[in-house]
């Protein structure tokens, strides 16, 4: 419970900082805080329910802070969470380099998925003609920042997951007397 609330707070604050920073720095040079946090949670938090609900919260908030339809980023965040969770079972994504590479590929997939959704739901909207000009710096900044974000979330999760579990139970075996 405590872990979920702290993660929600950190996630919302990250998105708000991202939105304010986009007023000064073009968004293509900024990392996608929502995506990085969702990947970090997928790799660091044991409970999949916390991860799924966290992805939905960040998805809806991103939609409120973006020109997308309400629900579009929810699908993308859930997809990113699922992919990171499934791949982390088969591959070791905990090293900085594999994680950065994974996030680089995920950023490209994310742009592609957004294009598909926009084409289907909002004809005319979607990616700009010179998409590579925007995609390359965006994906690179995501990849560079992913290991640091994951390390921070992992540290928070380690701390709070043990808190949530409570003190270790010390049950004495019952003694029966006849």
């Amino acid at each position, binding site marked *: 419970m405590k872990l979920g609330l702290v993660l929600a707070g950190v996630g919302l604050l990250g*998105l708000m900082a991202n*939105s*304010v920073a*986009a*007023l000064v720095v073009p968004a293509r040079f900024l990392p996608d805080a929502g995506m990085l946090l969702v990947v970090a949670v997928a790799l660091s938090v044991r409970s999949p329910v916390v991860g799924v609900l966290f992805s939905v919260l960040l998805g*809806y908030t991103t939609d*409120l802070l*973006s020109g997308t339809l309400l629900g579009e980023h929810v699908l993308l965040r859930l997809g990113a969470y699922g992919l990171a969770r499934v791949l982390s079972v088969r591959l070791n994504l905990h090293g900085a380099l594999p994680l950065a590479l994974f996030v680089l590929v995920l950023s490209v997939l994310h742009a592609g998925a957004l294009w598909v959704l926009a084409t289907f*739901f909002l004809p005319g*909207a979607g990616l700009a003609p010179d998409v590579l000009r925007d995609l390359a710096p965006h994906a690179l900044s995501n990849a560079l920042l992913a290991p640091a974000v994951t390390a921070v979330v992992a540290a928070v999760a380690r701390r709070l997951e043990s808190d949530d579990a409570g003190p270790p139970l010390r049950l004495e075996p019952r003694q029966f007397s006849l």
Partner: protein
Amino acid sequence: MAETRNRVSLTLLVAVLVGVATVTMVVDRRALRDGTRELPAWAGGLLDAVVSVQQVLLFPVDFVRGAWRRTSVLMDVEQENQQLRGRIARLEEDNLQLREALVASGRLERIAEMRQDLEVPMLPAELVGSDVSPWFRSVLLDRGRGDGVRSGMPVISEQGLAGLVVATSGSAAKTMLLLDRQTAVDATVQRSRARGIVRGRGDDVLLFEFVARGSDVRPGDIVITSGLDGVHPKGLRVGTVTAVEPSGSKLLQTALVAPAVDFGRLEQVFVMLRRGPTLELLYATESGDEVPLGQTAGNGP
């Protein structure tokens, strides 16, 4: 057994959440197309909370930006002063000539009477956030339904047309900028009166589509709103034509337009709270009901 039950529960939860997200997308898309997009209470509440925190986060950004602006203004002030003096002199001369012409035609008094009716109330608003996705161009304003802002209201800056309000909460409004690919504005070339549609491309350039035959569009031409889309009042500056692409054998020709508004430095804007009376009359239905603002165009195809 317990593990299987957990997996089934999780799969069900994800399926329900995906279903809910898809439904909200469809509902939101319909509301956007109809021009009746108001955020649901839970989303509006979340947006209000987010915006109030963003206003706090904006303080240090504003401080740095203000200091930088003051420094650069001080450096340019002398040159700008000279340019402005020259411009004022030219405008005074133009004004005098126009007054003379109006007096000569006996219309000055009538225009003075009409002015009060024609003035559209403007609400100043600050930008408190920008789009977090590099693929969309929208901004968040610190004024919402509580201040009278509604979906479909045009947003302008002192340089020209900036965008359109597309969603509102109690104290915030999401505005789609002119640069976004979902934006379409009915526009006219000021010099030749050639009409067409200005569309955002998602980058810093606009696209002006017009019928190739009989249209006279040249680089340097100023593009303004035509007022015929029922959303934007006539005469708002949209941008300047920078290049005209050859039409070939196509019916539609396109021109690239540099937006009048410097979107990189946009900090304060004005929301036009209603259309002028001439437009209200133009778009009133036969039964006398007014077409809701934003219903006819402006939100893209």
